[in-house]
Structures are given as C-alpha cells and as structure tokens.
C-alpha cells in the first residue's frame, strides 16, 4: 500500500474499519484512499484490491463522466450529498448503492462515502426500494416536470419528461446549471425563483416559460419547495412544473377574441352613431328641401309683386324706391338662408379634379380684396411649393376658403388686422373623436401625409366654449340677419366629403387659426399626366337668378 494513508493509530480509524456500513474515503482524483472491510465485501473484492484503486474501476462505465463531475462539485462545495452510485461487483453483477457522500475537511479534502442501501439491478428489491421505484415511476411518467437543484443551482435530479423536453438524457442534465441549458434570461429567472423560495423558506408558485425541443414556447406553472437536510438546513430546491401552454394559448385566444369583440363593438357603436347622424342629416335634408320649396314659392310671388311695383312712376311716393330696394334685399336674404340650409343638408356629389392647391388658394384671395383693403387689413401669403396637387372639388373648396377668409376678416380690427394664409405639407395629428359622415376608409389616419391650408388671423379669437360649437349648424355669434350660422358647418361638411379634416385653434384676444387637412396626392398623380379639367364645371341645369360669381362672397354665412 504505497498510497498516503491516514495515520493508522487513530481510534476513529479502527471504528471505520470495524464498521458494518460499507464505507470508503476517496481523494479528489477519485482514488480510494481507504476502505473498510464491509465495503470490500459489498464489492466482492479483497480489501487489498480495493484500497488505492480508482473508484471508477468499480462503477458502471456509462456513469463515469457524470460521477467525475459530481465529485468535482462535491469537493468544491463541501457538505453532504445523498445520491446513487451503480457499482460493478467482483462477481460481475451490478448493484445500485444509495450513498451518502460527506466531504471531510482536513489537511486536504477527502470524501467519505457510506453505502446506506443497496439493491441489485434486476434482483429482488426491498419494499423501500420498491416504493422508491414506484415513486420514481410516478415522477418519470407524470406529465409534469420534476427537478431538484442544489444550493448552487445545479440539477441534482430531473425526471425523464424534463430531460426529453431538453432533448438530453437525464444524466446529461444532472450536474449542470440552468445557465448551461437555457438562454441567460431564462436561467436567471429560474435561479431567481429558486432564491426566492429559499429566502421565503416555503413553497411558492411561478409561471415560467421555455422553448421545447421543437422550439415551441411552452408555459409552465411551477411549484417550488425548499429542501432541507436532517438538521433543517436548506440544501436545495425541488420543483414540479405542469404544462399550461394550452391553457395559455386558450387564454391568449380568448384575449384576442375579446379584443376583437371589443373593437367590433366599438366599430358598431361608431357606425351606429354615424347612422344616427346620417339619419338626422337625412331628415334635416328632407325638411330643408321641403322648406326650400314652400318658402321659395311665396318668395317668387313677392318678387313678382316687387317687379311690378318697380315699374311704377318714380313720383308715386317719396319713399317708394327705398322700400322696394329693402324688400328686394329681404327676399334675397331669405333665399340665401334657404340655400344655405339645403347646401348644408344635401350630400351632393363632389366634382373632383386634381389641382394645384396653391393656385386655388391664391385665386380665392381676390374675392376678399375689396373688403380687406377697405378695412385696412394686411395679408401675408406663405405658400409652400411642395404641397403640389390635391384632389378636390374646386368650387366647393373655394366656398370653404372664402367662408373662412370672410370670418377671419370679420374677426380682425380695422388697420391693425392681419391675415396669414399658408399652405404646407404635414402629417395628420391625432384623430378627432367627433367625426361624422365620412366613411372610415376615406378617413385620414394619424400619421398620414397631408396637405395643410391654414387661415390665421390676429382677431378677437373664439372663447373655448364657442370653439366647441362653431361647427354646429345654426350656431352663430353674429347678430340676427348677419349670419345664418351655417357657414362653418357647411365648411366642415364639404371638407369631410373630401375625406379631409378641418380644425379650429384659437386664443381669445390673440387670434384664430383654421386648418384644413387634405389627403396628399401621390407622386405619380403629381407627375403631370393628369390633364386639369376646365375650372368652370357648372353644367347650368339650374340657374339661380342673381347667383353670380360677384355675389358669392356674401352667399356664405358666418360663425
């Protein structure tokens, strides 16, 4: 025996050798430094052949790699370990030993291995071993993951199912840490949960996930329990995890379904609102058309009478001429109101052309020139050339611009008044919740590129209460007879028919900005192969007497 042996005269050594429990002492290299007779008997080898030999020469070759790893770990960590070793006996039989390995501190670290229980592979088993086997069967066959991890996070045991999931044999997993088996974030999560359980020293439940051997994400409900040694020290964590992927998937599906239902519900509501609005508009439209007819006939009659009187001699009465002029104006005004009402309610078809926005805006400005100069109001034009062309109904768009310009002109002070009319390319801001009429498909969405036309004034501004209502029909702050209260509601309707948006911003005392946003025409349409149709699209089916271009600017109500 040339191996460095323990001092032979120590009393414990005698106890060791006399002990009935098969026990041996091994060093870090796995060499058996000392062994008792019971161990030699257990192995069916003479004691002399056992002492000094590597443990590996008495164990199953397929376990050796795993065993080496275990021993390394035991040496590094110290402490007690309960595990199994499959031994090869001198008589050629295999036997599984349930062993307790204790790392002994001293001059150098040694490992004391006691075999507490043995069972022959394929042989008869003790009831305990059998029950252990049954337990093992449950563990291996249950559709759950079982595992034990020690204090350093290494797998001490996993069941077959867990190993399958990892695409490895259990022996390839035991001894490894989650870091060697999972992506770092998952490994951190698992070990974090272990630590939590050990800190709390009680069972905890976690929802964990991992990818299976096919790469599919699986979800686990994992119950982790702290494990204790006989003295009550925590030695690791045991866990059971059941697959809740299907549950999760179903839940996900339900969530999706719920989302879908919610959005469908929202859409339904908004459609309902739109329908109600459309119905309202439709009945207002019918009413307007009816009113128009019934009011215009008596107006026609009154006008005929006025026409007759206007041919009478001048000297009939001193006030005669003036009275006729006033009455004629009243007839026109009544007619205009009826017109505005019908304009507002009738959802007329647009005559869409692709036109140069800046040109349309620029050509509208002369209509207010007369009034503007009379009031001494400055006009600043700020047109961005890149806005290019948009698709719009020129006449209706001009009607909108004119209305806004006249409103702005009315809002500013004489001499100090200033209007700024600008165009630019922009992006659709957050959607306006109060949308009516326009269909969803045509509606501008947040982030859509738009052409913006702005009309800014430095006038008295609009109070926040009024600002909320300026687009409502019949809402006016002007005195009776000065405005119908339909102007801006018609403006909004026309812009919405274009699939655009009109927005008012105002600061009382500082001024108001009305911004029109229209869908930008793609580059191809801008290429110029679209021939612009003649501007005057009026087919002239209906001739409204006196409705000529020069009459247009007074034809529009105010806010």
């Amino acid at each position: 025996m040339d191996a460095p042996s323990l001092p032979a005269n120590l009393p414990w050594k005698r106890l060791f050798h006399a002990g009935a429990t098969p026990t041996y002492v091994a060093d870090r290299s796995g060499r058996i430094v000392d062994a008792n007779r019971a161990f030699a008997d257990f192995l069916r080898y003479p004691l002399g052949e056992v002492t000094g030999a590597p443990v590996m020469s008495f164990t199953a070759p397929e376990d050796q790699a795993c065993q080496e790893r275990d021993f390394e770990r035991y040496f590094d960590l110290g402490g007690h370990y309960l595990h199994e070793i499959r031994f090869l006996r001198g008589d050629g039989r295999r036997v599984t030993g349930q062993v307790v390995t204790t790392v002994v501190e001293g001059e150098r670290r040694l490992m004391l291995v006691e075999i507490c229980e043995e069972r022959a592979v394929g042989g008869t088993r003790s009831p305990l071993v059998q029950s252990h086997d049954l337990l093992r069967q449950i563990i291996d066959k249950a559709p759950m993951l079982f595992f034990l991890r020690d204090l350093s996070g290494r797998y001490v045991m996993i069941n077959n199912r867990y190993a399958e999931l990892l695409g490895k044999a259990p022996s390839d997993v035991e001894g490894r840490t989650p870091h060697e088996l999972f992506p770092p974030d998952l490994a951190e999560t698992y070990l974090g949960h272990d630590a939590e359980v050990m800190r709390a020293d009680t069972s905890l439940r976690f929802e964990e996930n991992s990818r299976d051997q096919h790469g599919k994400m699986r979800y686990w409900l994992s119950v982790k329990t702290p494990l204790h040694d006989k003295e009550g020290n925590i030695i690791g964590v045991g866990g059971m995890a059941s697959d809740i992927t299907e549950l999760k998937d179903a839940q996900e599906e339900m969530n999706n379904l719920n989302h879908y239902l919610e959005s469908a519900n929202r859409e339904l509501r908004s459609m309902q609102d739109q329908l109600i609005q459309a119905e309202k508009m439709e009945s207002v439209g019918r009413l307007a058309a009816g009113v128009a007819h019934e009011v215009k006939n008596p107006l026609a009659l009154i006008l005929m009478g006025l026409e007759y009187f206007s041919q009478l001699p001048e000297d009939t009465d001193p006030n005669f001429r003036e009275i006729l002029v006033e009455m004629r104006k009243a007839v026109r005004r009544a007619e205009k109101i009826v017109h505005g009402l019908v304009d507002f309610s009738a959802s007329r078809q647009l005559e869409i052309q692709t036109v140069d926005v800046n040109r349309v805006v620029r050509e509208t400005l002369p209509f207010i020139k007369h009034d503007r100069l009379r009031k001494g109001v400055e006009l600043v034009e700020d047109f961005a050339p890149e806005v290019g062309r948009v698709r719009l109904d020129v006449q209706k768009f001009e009607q909108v611009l004119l209305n806004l310009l006249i409103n702005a002109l009315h809002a500013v002070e004489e001499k100090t008044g200033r209007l700024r009319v600008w165009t630019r390319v922009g992006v659709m801001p957050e959607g306006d919740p109060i949308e009516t009429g326009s269909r969803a498909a045509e509606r501008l969405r947040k982030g859509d590129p738009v052409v913006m036309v702005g009309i800014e004034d430095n006038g008295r501004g609009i109070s926040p209460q009024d600002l909320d209502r300026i687009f409502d029909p019949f809402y006016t702050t002007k005195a009776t007879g000065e405005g119908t209260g339909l102007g801006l509601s018609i403006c909004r309707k026309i812009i919405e028919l274009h699939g655009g948006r009109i927005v008012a911003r105002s600061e009382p005392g500082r001024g108001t900005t009305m911004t029109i946003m229209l869908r930008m025409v793609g580059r191809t349409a801008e290429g110029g192969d679209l021939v612009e149709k003649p501007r005057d699209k009026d087919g002239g089916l209906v001739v409204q007497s006196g409705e000529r271009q020069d009459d247009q600017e007074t034809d529009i109500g105010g806010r």
Partner: protein
Amino acid sequence: MIKKRILVVDDEAGFTKLLKFNLERTGNYEVREENVATRAAQAARIFLPDLILLDIVMPGRDGGDVVAELRRHSQTTHIPVIMLTALVARNEISRHSVAESGELLMLGKPVDMATLIHCIEEQLYLHGKGTAQASGDSAETAGGEPTS
C-alpha cells in the same frame, strides 16, 4: 308687332297672376294662366302658345309628365318650354321625370323679370319665333348670360 303667346302653368294662382301682369305690361306678350296641372296640356292645345312656363312640383301631375304629354301631341310637340322650379339642388330635380325629358331650360324661383324675359326671348329666338328687337332689349336688361 304680334304679341307672343305665353302659357303659364303653376298651381300657385297668385304667382301666375303677378307673372301675367309683369309680362303683359311689357306689351310684348299675351299671357294665359293655368293653375291645374292636369288641364295644362289641354290648355296648350287650345291656346297654342309660342312658349310655356311650367312649374315642376304641382299636385296631381308634375311638370315632367306635362312635358311628356305636350310632346305626344303634334300641335304642341314643338312648343318651347321653360321649367320654373322652387327646387334647388340638382339631385332633387333628377328625382323627377323631367330629367329624362332632355335639354329643358330650368329657372329657379324666385326669379327676377330681367332674367326671365332674357330666357323667354332666347328660347323664342332659338325656335325661330323671336323678334330681333325684343331679343336685343332683354339681353341688355338681363345683364348676363344665363348658363344653359
């Protein structure tokens, strides 16, 4: 100068009466009124006017049907017709059968006399019935071309 005969068909008797006063005062027209739509075509066959001013929305029969009946009878088929209507929007009119009766001239109520006379003279001229003098006068007073 021979006066042009004009038949005015409108259920509003007050309107036709005042229209008659206004037209006849010019000295150029002889006007007959008809306030019952169902009798309009018959009145036209008896009176044989040079031009008809016809309302669209009338109880019993609308202007479009009257036009259709006028066109069916050889004595009245070539008589020019001007529609007078209190309807406003284009799509309102298209709901009525007049839309199918072709290029009828329409005037919206209320209409001033200058425009009305201009249109009457234009139609008479186009149908070879107008006088150069009357046409020239009206063009001056109307102060603009009606779109047609």
